[in-house]
């Protein structure tokens, strides 16, 4: 019998010296960060002016942060952010998918229309687009829906529906439209990459059992494209969450707008921006968890075994740690498990 086959031999894992140096540096850095985040400054220095009888205050004004974190104005701003983001994303995703399908159409007019849309909305700042939709009332004081071009012909103008654009584009609605239309340009590229990623054989198979083109798209191509589309779309949602803060520039009191409204009164700028940022972080964290489960759901069939959920992974890690501290002698046979 060779020593390799001896079931009682102790296993010595490879030592990684470089890794320990890295771990040490990271720990040191984290310690410095935590220290400075929770350091205090003497009264009268920097932004610390609480008045008499107080020796020091938090460098990052944590007591102000705590005080404003759940004020009604901030919470109301959060609510508006949480309305703007999904509304804009819904417009962006629906229009983006339509644009992607148009872009892939063999019809040149459809594909170049879609291309031009993306070219224009990606090529101009969303900030400008935001003002454009707000001030569209200046360019078109009134809208009517009827037969096109007939208003050039005397006495033929028929309008089915007529309205005033000032009332149409409130700052909130202008923001939804601006962010949604802008997002569609980015979503169309994401959706297109997903549609292209589906194997052509899938389309042939769907066609051969008699599915129409619409059914093939809806039942076969889009569900499979989702696997490719979802991860970057999650990114877009998170990015949109923060892009909506631009709406504060046109007077929408979303999260940043609400923070601004407060700090223009009391000059606690950093504290209020930290409050807003903490809320963005919290929502982003929730969205990331949602994205993970959504990705897992649409990976159905693509992977032989789906990746573990974080909870499954924690359980597995705990089991791994438990296995490292066995009660008796560690046997060779246990190592592989």
């Amino acid at each position, binding site marked *: 019998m060779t020593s390799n086959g001896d079931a009682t031999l102790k296993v010595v894992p490879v030592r990684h010296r470089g890794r320990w140096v890295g771990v040490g540096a990271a720990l040191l850095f984290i310690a410095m960060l935590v220290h400075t985040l929770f350091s205090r400054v003497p009264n009268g220095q920097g932004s610390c002016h609480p008045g008499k009888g107080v020796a020091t205050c938090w460098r990052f004004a944590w007591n102000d942060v705590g005080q404003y974190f759940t004020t009604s104005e901030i919470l109301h701003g959060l609510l508006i952010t949480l309305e703007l983001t999904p509304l804009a994303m819904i417009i962006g995703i629906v229009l983006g998918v339509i644009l992607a399908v148009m872009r892939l159409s063999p019809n040149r007019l459809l594909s170049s229309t879609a291309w031009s849309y993306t070219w224009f909305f990606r090529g101009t700042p969303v900030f400008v687009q935001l003002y454009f939709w707000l001030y569209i009332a200046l360019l078109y004081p009134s809208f009517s829906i009827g037969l096109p071009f007939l208003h050039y012909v005397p006495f033929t103008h028929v309008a089915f529906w007529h309205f005033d654009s000032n009332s149409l584009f409130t700052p909130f609605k202008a923001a939804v439209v601006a962010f949604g239309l802008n997002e569609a340009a980015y979503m169309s590229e994401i959706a297109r990459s997903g549609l292209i990623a589906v194997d052509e054989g899938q389309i042939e198979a769907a066609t051969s059992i008699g599915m129409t083109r619409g059914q093939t798209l809806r039942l076969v191509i889009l569900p499979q494209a989702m696997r490719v589309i979802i991860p970057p779309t999650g990114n877009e949602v998170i990015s949109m969450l923060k892009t909506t803060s631009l709406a504060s520039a046109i007077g929408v009191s979303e999260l940043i707008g609400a923070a601004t409204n407060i700090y223009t009164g009391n000059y606690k700028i950093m504290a209020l921006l930290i409050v807003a940022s903490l809320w963005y972080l919290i929502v982003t964290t929730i969205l990331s968890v949602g994205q993970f489960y959504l990705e897992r759901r649409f990976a159905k*069939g693509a992977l032989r075994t789906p990746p573990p959920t974080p909870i499954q992974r924690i359980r597995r890690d705990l089991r791994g740690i438990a296995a490292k501290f066995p009660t008796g002698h560690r046997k060779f046979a246990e190592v592989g498990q």
Partner: protein
Amino acid sequence: MTSPMVEARGVRKSYGGVEVLKGVDLTVVRGEVTCLIGPSGSGKSTLLRCINHLEKHDAGELRVEGHLIGYEARDGKLYELNDKQICSERSQIGMVFQRFNLFQHLTVLENITIGQTKVKGVGSDAAVAKARELLARVGLVAKEKNYPSQLSGGQQQRVAIARALAMEPKLMLFDEPTSALDPELVGEVLDVMKDLALSGMTMIVVTHEMNFAREVANTVYFLDQGVIEESGDPKVILSAPASQRLKSFLSKVL
């Protein structure tokens, strides 16, 4: 009715100026198995795809059960069918592909029910019952909840056959159904196909399995460079080919 299941007369098809089918004549009798053999690039897939209207032929006549594919004869005129009518024609012709092409996001069972429910409008209970019956027929009852990626190639191809059969086709087209399989998996797929032939299904099979052709086919067509070079009873033409081309082709595949 005595019209043949498929009848091709002088069928031509070009891709960007290159003629792939150069006047193909072929007759497939109802209830018979026809094997289409020939070297790679000779136009076998193209011919199958024309029969299924996945491609439009440029010239010649292609009839299924006496009807011109893609057209309707009315009042002495030929009317081109619209998309929906073509889809309904297609749903009556089953097709099995070299690369299986199972819907990756659906389970085995869903692969077989989706055409029934969404194209034929069958209720979901009836569709599931039919799918289970077909899975039993191809020997895969235990796999109904699996996804295609969890099956072997041979199993996937058997599911693909079941998916096509679920549409209750009058004609089945097979495009090299065993060419992508490991050698030990070829047999299980051919067995299912033999079974299907015995049940009286009309089949056109593009294949390089000469033993299958010899054993199962009623007629073999040898397609070479876009024309039918030779055709007839497999026992005759595969053993004693008349043309030099078939002779040299057989010496390469056997």
